[in-house]
């Protein structure tokens, strides 16, 4: 929450800040010939009243010496600390990363870190301490005494602390409960840093540089704490090219934003909506989008002649298919930017958008404007980026976005990896050639470990799956081992934990002076190997959660086709922005963006489809869907020709449904439908809000409601087939059952028959001989 210091509650510190103002008023009063009664100096009665009124009113009016100063309170929760930072054992450390955006000029004297902590009462005060370290500089060392064992707050000012754009805050403890024979892992050794701890940053906003070479910064600032707010301004009568250009720009913003939320919005040109807090992106030709003219004065090399862009010097009109990209500071709101993606024709507009969103960025793209030649074409290179999830191919840690990571010492923290898996690894999915996932792990560890207790434990979804002893006293470098991941543990959102249990060799309760130089490494060439026949989980709309699957099979979206109705409302288009922005955030293209967009369903082969609509979907496109909209307020839901319900309501809900494209069991079509602004807003908020989106579960159909309380799953299209009645068994089985139940009959019968048919005839034959 950003607040001006003059607003809100008024602390003592603030009052003290006004003392110079009061003093000045007194001085002025005295200097103007008034008699001040304080210290036996006489004064005038009217001056007294005026003075008193000034004293009261000045602070209330917010007159401060530095009206532009802002403060930002950043709780540890916002930095990813969910509950508490737990610091156990004799020596341990936790780290938190925080950023300082380049648009903040920090006032170190007014900025501080407030830490709230508590610790075990058993700690020895003279040998136990909590150290606060910022960017490797120790800023405070606090003895852990009885007095501060209960929740205690400590404020550390940032004066003299070397702050950077990305900073590492570390809490480190040294803890002991006895001077002799100490168990270093004893449970009484603990300190907790509570999530109410926070940073208070006082800063003055600084205007960022605006240059195409850094586009989309400062629109998208990876160091910022707030969601990026961007407003697209589209012609009221937009063309398909305008829509496509807007979608490309939006996906590109998403790819630049990554972990930061992005809240794109839209308005049509000429429709007056307050743009106060947004960066603006105007798309279209000057003819279609008249608001572009308002910013024409900011263009250096081009000017508008009869609503057409022309070179300023020569007045020569830009070619029809050429585009123009402009990126500059908003003339009225300097902290905001304006991006113009324009041209003299819709094709030129699209050309400009394609150029601006292509990767890698072209070197000549710099300054505040760039004319895109009509001859420019994307490279056409194939994307080499691979999806960051496991589908059916092997994936290395690098491909999944994980670096080589090292941990140290006796209380080495667990190394956690989020492993998205979009396929079905249950054995039931294919019993003949069941799918297999093997973790081929590469790890190293230090010499001098205790071989009896040191190990590398692997947990998958909080279940221990392997424990690798670390037994070589000389340590080992890049050891490879394979661990089969049990199928039953593999879901869609998985967590792999590699926990090094590092116990020093010369270690024991009564070894006071052991050295702990232990470390362990998980290398990024570790990989997941996939075997067997892996089944697809498609269709399932819940798979877009975290991964954007299946639309993100390629990062440049060459497998995505978006269908938008011809007369789309603002709410529907904002939903398109929210969904495509989300897809962008989980990808990073290495070529130009290649998604296709149309008003029709005519689908290029080999693409997954995303349809946005109000239910008026063409008959040809309705076929695979279970939910249809036969009348303005009615919904028709049918299952397997046996269950059909038709009902109507006040259309406040929106629905997401995914099915296979008819005749293609690899490609899917997802339809996002609603019939009211509230319905589309609900979908928009679902895709924009990280917490809600990441809570979305699997399911064929999702119902989204405006109250944001639940996302219902319509998930059981067909009940499982009736179990086969138990076979009563063959006649032989029944005979065996009978013999089991009546063994005496069986024995007597067998003996009798043997005698009658075999032995007696044999005897009789011998007698004859």
């Amino acid at each position: 929450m950003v607040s001006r210091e003059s607003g809100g509650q008024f602390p003592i510190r603030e009052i003290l800040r006004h003392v110079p103002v009061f003093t000045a008023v007194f001085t002025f009063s005295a200097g103007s010939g008034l008699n001040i009664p304080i210290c036996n100096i006489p004064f005038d009665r009217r001056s007294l009243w005026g003075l008193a009124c000034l004293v009261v009113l000045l602070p209330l009016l917010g007159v401060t010496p530095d009206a532009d100063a802002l403060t930002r309170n950043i709780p540890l929760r916002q930095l990813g600390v969910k509950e508490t930072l737990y610091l156990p054992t004799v020596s341990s450390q936790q780290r938190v990363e925080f950023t300082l955006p380049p648009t903040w000029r920090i006032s170190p004297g007014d900025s501080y870190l407030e830490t709230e902590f508590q610790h075990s009462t058993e700690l020895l005060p003279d040998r136990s301490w909590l150290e606060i370290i910022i960017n490797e500089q120790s800023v405070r060392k606090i003895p852990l005494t009885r007095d501060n064992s209960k929740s205690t707050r400590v404020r550390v000012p940032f004066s003299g602390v070397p702050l950077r754009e990305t900073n590492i805050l570390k809490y480190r403890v040294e803890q002991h409960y006895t001077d002799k024979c100490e168990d270093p892992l004893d449970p009484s050794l603990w300190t907790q840093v509570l999530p109410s701890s926070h940073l208070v940053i006082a800063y003055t906003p600084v205007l960022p540089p605006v240059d195409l070479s850094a586009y989309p910064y400062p629109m998208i600032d990876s160091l910022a704490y707030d969601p990026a707010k961007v407003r697209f301004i589209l012609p009221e009568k937009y063309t398909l090219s305008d829509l496509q250009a807007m979608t490309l720009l939006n996906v590109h913003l998403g790819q630049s934003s990554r972990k930061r939320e992005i809240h794109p919005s839209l308005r049509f040109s000429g429709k007056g909506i307050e743009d106060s807090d947004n960066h603006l992106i105007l798309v279209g030709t000057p003819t279609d989008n008249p608001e572009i003219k308002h910013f024409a004065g900011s263009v250096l090399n081009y000017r508008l002649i009869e609503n057409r862009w022309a070179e300023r010097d020569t007045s020569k009109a830009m070619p029809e298919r050429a585009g123009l990209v402009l990126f500059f500071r908003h003339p009225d709101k300097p902290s905001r930017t304006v991006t113009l993606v324009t041209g003299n024709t819709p094709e030129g507009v699209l050309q400009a958008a394609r150029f601006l969103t292509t990767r890698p960025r072209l070197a000549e793209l710099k300054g505040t404007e760039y004319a895109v030649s009509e001859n420019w074409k994307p490279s056409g290179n194939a994307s080499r980026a691979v999806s960051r999830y496991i589908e059916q191919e092997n994936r290395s840690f690098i491909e999944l976005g994980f670096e080589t990571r090292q941990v140290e010492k006796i209380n080495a923290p667990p190394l956690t990896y989020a492993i998205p898996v979009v396929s079905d690894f249950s054995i039931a999915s294919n019993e003949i050639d069941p799918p297999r996932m093997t973790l081929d792990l590469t790890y190293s560890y230090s010499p001098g470990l205790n071989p009896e207790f040191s190990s590398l434990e692997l947990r998958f979804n909080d279940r221990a799956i392997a424990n690798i002893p670390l037994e070589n006293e000389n340590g080992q470098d890049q050891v490879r081992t394979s661990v089969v991941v049990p199928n039953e543990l593999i879901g869609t959102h998985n967590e792999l934990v590699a926990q090094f249990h590092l116990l020093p060799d010369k270690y024991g309760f009564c070894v006071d002076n052991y050295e702990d130089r232990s470390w362990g490494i998980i290398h990024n060439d570790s990989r997941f190997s996939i075997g067997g026949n892996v089944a697809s989980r498609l269709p399932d709309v819940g798979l877009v959660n975290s991964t954007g699957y299946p639309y993100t099979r390629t990062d440049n979206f060459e497998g995505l086709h978006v269908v938008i109705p011809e007369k789309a409302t603002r709410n529907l288009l904002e939903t398109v922005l929210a969904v495509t922005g989300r897809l962008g955030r989980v990808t990073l293209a290495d070529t130009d963006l290649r998604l296709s967009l149309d008003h029709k369903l005519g689908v290029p082969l080999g693409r997954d489809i995303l349809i946005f609509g109000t239910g008026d979907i063409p008959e040809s496109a309705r076929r695979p869907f279970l939910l249809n909209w036969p009348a303005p307020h009615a919904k028709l839901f049918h299952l397997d020709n046996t269950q059909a319900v038709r009902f109507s309501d006040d259309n406040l809900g929106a629905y997401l449904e995914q099915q296979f494209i008819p005749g293609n069991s690899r490609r899917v079509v997802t339809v996002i439908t609603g019939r009211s602004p509230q319905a589309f807003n609900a979908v928009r908020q679902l895709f924009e809000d990280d917490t809600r989106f990441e809570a979305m579960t699997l399911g064929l159909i999702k119902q989204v409601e405006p109250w944001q309380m639940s996302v219902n799953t319509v998930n059981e299209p067909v009940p499982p087939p009736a179990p086969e009645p138990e076979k009563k068994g063959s006649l032989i089985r029944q005979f065996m059952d009978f013999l089991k139940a009546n063994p005496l009959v069986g024995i007597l019968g067998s003996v009798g028959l043997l005698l009658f048919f075999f032995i007696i005839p044999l005897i009789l034959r011998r007698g004859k001989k």
Partner: protein
Amino acid sequence: MTRLRRYRLILALWLVAALLLPLVPAISLSQTQDAPKPGNTLPLTLADFGEKDGYTLKTVKTERQFAFTKPRNWEILPASSVAVTFQHSPALLPERSSLNVLVNNRILRTIELNDNNATPTTISIPVPPDILKDHNTLAFQVDQHYTYQCEDPFSSELWTTLLPETRLNLVYEPQPLRPNLAHFPYPFFDDLGYGPTRVGFLLSQKNIADETLEAAGVVATLMGQHAGWRDVDTDVADSPHADRNLVLIGTPKENVHIRNLKDKQPLSLDTAGNFLDPNSRKELPADYGIIEVLANPGHPERAILVISGNSPVGVRRAAHFLAQNPANKLMVGQYAIIEEQEPGPQHPFRLWDGFIRHAGETSFANMSLETLTARGITALPIYYNVRKMPDLSTPAEEKVTVRTVYSYSSQLDPTQSKLEVLLNDKAMASVPLDKRPGETQAVLKFEVPAEDFYTYNDLQYKFHLFPEKYDLCNFVTDVHIWGTVHNSSSVSVPGKITAPLPDVGLLNDGAFPFALFQDFSNLAFIMPPEPETADIKAMLSVATRFGRLSKSRTGINLSAVRPQTLTDAIRNDHHLVVIGPPKRNPILKDFNAKMKLLVEGGSAALREPLSRLAYDPQQGIVEETLSPWNDTRVGLIVSGETPEAMKRAARLFDDDKWYSAIEPGNLLVVNEDGPRSLTFLQRGEARFVYPSDYAPGPRIPDWAWIIFGFLAFIGTLTIIRLIFFRKPTAK
């Protein structure tokens, strides 16, 4: 006072006021925030957490966790607290022993275990509301030591007991209700809530249609299915002012309470009491169903669910849609008008989720059991509830085989580490964990006598884990040792699908046989021609209980009829639940031939053997018989001479203790203090129940096997003789 002094005083006061004025809002605001709000208090005792006798924390370090929830519409207030009452071993070293109280991993208080609190001591610890989420964990951790040297971590000297008085006091303020069908079953049922789900049904007292009765049964069963193991308090309300969530069922013409809510409902009614289309303002077709949810005008924190239509057919359609999975999850808003509703596919026969359904092998995964891990030297046991369908009968001489797939860590002490398995608290198997590198997905098989394997079984895995070179005087660490039981483990049950009926005891086993189809598509309630409140209450209680014991994946398709509307299809093919006293429900005459207890004129006579019972007309009667019309179906008679008797019979299904006390037999007499089972079943009367579409195959009588065997043997020997012992032909 001189003028100068007065001015000085005024100036001084102004200055002080001016300096303090800006602080006033902050002060008043902080007072507002800190002042304890009045609120309700929910005390959760250890008994509520399943430890009614308290819990003892043993060994050098251990932890006990209790899960609790924050209901959806509660704002937790700062007055919430944990009042921990404990005592501990006097042998503990105070400077080395402590009790930590945690909520959601945050240590709220560390209590030194010293001489002052060795005897029962209570300490109250505030719980900050901001750390509470929907699902929370209250934990008690102890670190206990009795010596600095050579300590046995399992010594009997190491204990701290949390006494039953320990409680978590949640102080809360209920938040306003926002009724919305997208959230259904909330607020009627909150999976985060406490206490029984209290629902009142408000129906017409007169001229109630079969469809309306059926709708009530469907909604009651649905509420039961949502509640599951949680208690449900279903009642027939007598006015819309009842302090509970209400379900209003019937047409507006039939149910005056729906008419009275005319101005509060999202859909309008015309003067004749018909629902109007919200767009065209025309009367809705008679067969359209109406579902509405709204806040109760008399109790804004309570909700009203309206199941209605302009005809009874519409009412039934609305109820069935409400229960129809998954279509019912499409509803959003305060109303839905059901224009068409085709019943979904039938829930498959005998598809009981989480149960062993067939002879042969069933994996833990198929029983919805998860892979679980236990850790450390004081690893807690891993519990599984293994359930077998009650009609899967295993002959006494056969064995049930449990195949356990387990893994364990490296570096265990092979001489002491082992995995122990207990079934229903009886030790069944034990295996040493003696491979130094550990094992992955090793298998342990053991057999269990069939008589020790019930419908509901507790399977317990105890990992006894000791680190390598474990030594009392040299114990170092156990953080790296663990054991895992995989859900690829399985249970093999031999046997046949067969169940002796009638037996009211099987009601306790998942409402068998009524819940064989979990959507109750072959269950019919037969109500008296003029049902009274007690009869409807009994029906709702039975329906709710059956719902609690079942889980339909499709819908709820039970029927409710009266003797005069009983169709041949229902009579011949359904299990029947007959409600009402013999005097008012004539269908019971058809059951006379099957009933063992005939109640006439205030006395009860047993048909065979002839005897008389000390019968009290206030006693409720619940009897199960074979259906008079189909020997593979049963009838459950819920009866009693008086309203009080009907009330007791209904309570049998409401009260968990009473219901779980039902024992095998074919007759239950429900007294003031609970049920008593009586068995009058005679030899040869038991039948085996099969579904209508389930062909058991030709059954050959046993004696025929002797003939078949004889002939087969002759044939075989004849062939052998022909081949090997043929006489040489004379040439």
